[in-house]
């Protein structure tokens, strides 16, 4: 985790801002990062404009090394192409850049995630008669397959962090610690889940995500209650360093411009 810097924290920030800042801190300089729409793009660009100026952002629209000066509302805005080191076709971005194993970190959102980091972005309810039809897979299954590691971000509630997924769109650690090897998934899979309440890290021994950090103002009990499975809690739970003034001003400048 990057040092948050010496600037003192400020008092007012939203839990979404805390989540974004915590995600940005996961990226160190030089990391090659496959960036999805929304929070991942915000977090990666926050890292790029603060602690990790040489982070490389790859967008599935084919933009490699984009350096946008404002937050693009989609993953295919003109600013991403204009500021990229290279722009390539979409088949190439998935074959030559993602599948090849060149990406260190993939960011994924989720409608549902389970204790092993498996992800559902397809349906709530039965597939053939869904309660809520979600957008579907997009780039996620192969991001989960091929990135060096995956960071999952989502808002924490029992309908999102669930005991059992309605549909497995993207594989985290399957059902057991050996599942990825058995399925031929080369990346290490999800290692971190960052929510608006805290940070969960994958523990290979118990083969599930364990609460390791709570955000300022959040109690461990809150997080346990907001989780749909019996959440394991680390022996020592840290308190996430609050967003610094530098982080917040960079985030707000970037998102607002």
């Amino acid at each position, binding site marked *: 985790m990057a040092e948050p810097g010496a600037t003192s924290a400020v008092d007012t920030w939203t839990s979404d801002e805390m989540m974004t800042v915590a995600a940005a801190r996961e990226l160190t300089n030089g990391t090659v990062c496959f960036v999805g729409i929304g929070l991942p793009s915000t977090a990666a660009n926050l890292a790029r404009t603060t602690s990790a100026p040489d982070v490389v952002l790859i967008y599935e629209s084919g933009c490699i090394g984009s350096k946008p000066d404002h937050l693009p509302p989609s993953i295919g805005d003109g600013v991403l192409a*204009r500021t990229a080191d290279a722009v390539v076709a979409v088949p190439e971005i998935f074959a030559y850049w993602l599948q090849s194993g060149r990406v260190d970190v993939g960011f994924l959102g989720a409608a549902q995630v389970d204790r092993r980091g498996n992800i559902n972005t397809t349906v709530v309810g039965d597939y053939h008669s869904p309660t809520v039809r979600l*957008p579907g897979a997009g780039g996620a299954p192969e991001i989960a*397959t091929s990135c060096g590691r995956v960071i999952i971000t989502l808002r924490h509630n029992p309908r999102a962090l669930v005991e059992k997924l309605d549909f497995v*769109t993207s594989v985290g650690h399957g059902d057991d610690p050996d599942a990825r090897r058995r399925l031929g998934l080369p990346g290490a899979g999800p290692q971190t889940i960052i929510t608006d309440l805290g940070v969960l890290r994958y523990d290979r021994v118990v083969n599930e995500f364990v609460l390791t950090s709570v955000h300022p103002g959040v109690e461990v009990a809150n997080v346990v209650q907001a989780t749909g499975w019996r959440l394991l809690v680390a022996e020592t739970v840290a308190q996430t360093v609050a967003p610094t003034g530098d982080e917040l001003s960079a985030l707000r400048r970037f998102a607002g411009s």
Partner: protein
Amino acid sequence: MARFTTLSAAVAELIRDGDVVALEGFTHLIPFAAGHEIIRQGRRDLTLVRMTPDIIYDQLIGMGCARKMIFSWAGNPGAGSLHRFRDAVEHAVPHLLEIEEHSHAGMAARYQAGASGLPFGILRGYAGTDLATITPTIGWITCPFTGENLAAVPALRPDVGVICAQQADRDGNVMLWGITGVQKEAVLSSKHSIVLVEEIVDSFSPRTNGVVLPAWVVDAIAVVPSGPYPSYAQDYSERASSFYTYWEPISRDRGAFLEWMDQHVLATTNHAGFLESLDRELVVETHG
């Protein structure tokens, strides 16, 4: 060999009821004007193919043009759901929509296979997912050299591929640049193709990620300025992000949706008419 024509004539001639049609575009250069024209001409039973179906596919579905959709991510990027798509899948409104869903990597491999004249493409993906269970067009293949098991997906070969490009030259060659998505593959995998361009130029300039499609792989070219609106054409316009949020409440309500489609699509005769029918502030900031 490319012929210059109107969009309306191109749709009338090349797209038939029951066709498999790919209107491709990856955020950039989405052929909205072509989707509207398909709606105006009342096509039915289409199989709609696209990696990222967005508002224009939602409109085609809501207006009852589609029998099936083949896709990998269906949403209103940055704004929310495709409510007409959801209504079709969740409640069979206006009628049942068959779906065949893949991941982006799988769809890209399918287009590549189609453009390459191969029956299938391969990728490392789908293993362990429920997609592999519910989508019959996901298969498996073993590497004859290493024994690794990989996913196989059948080639896409749409009847008609429709894309937007920035320019055509007078010989009918087409050029697009910036984010070019799978548009080259959509044209090269399709039996016929329609290209909407911003303008006709005497000659092309080199561009970042410039893609030129020679005239002889294109069937029809129509000059439709701002044809991608509310999407955009790099160096001609900006993405009208406000339209995507404006659309969210309209699409949520089927009545409001139908009224809007009546007023802005069915009651207009072409894309210029459509653009004129919109509130000026929705258009002018991004599309001049």
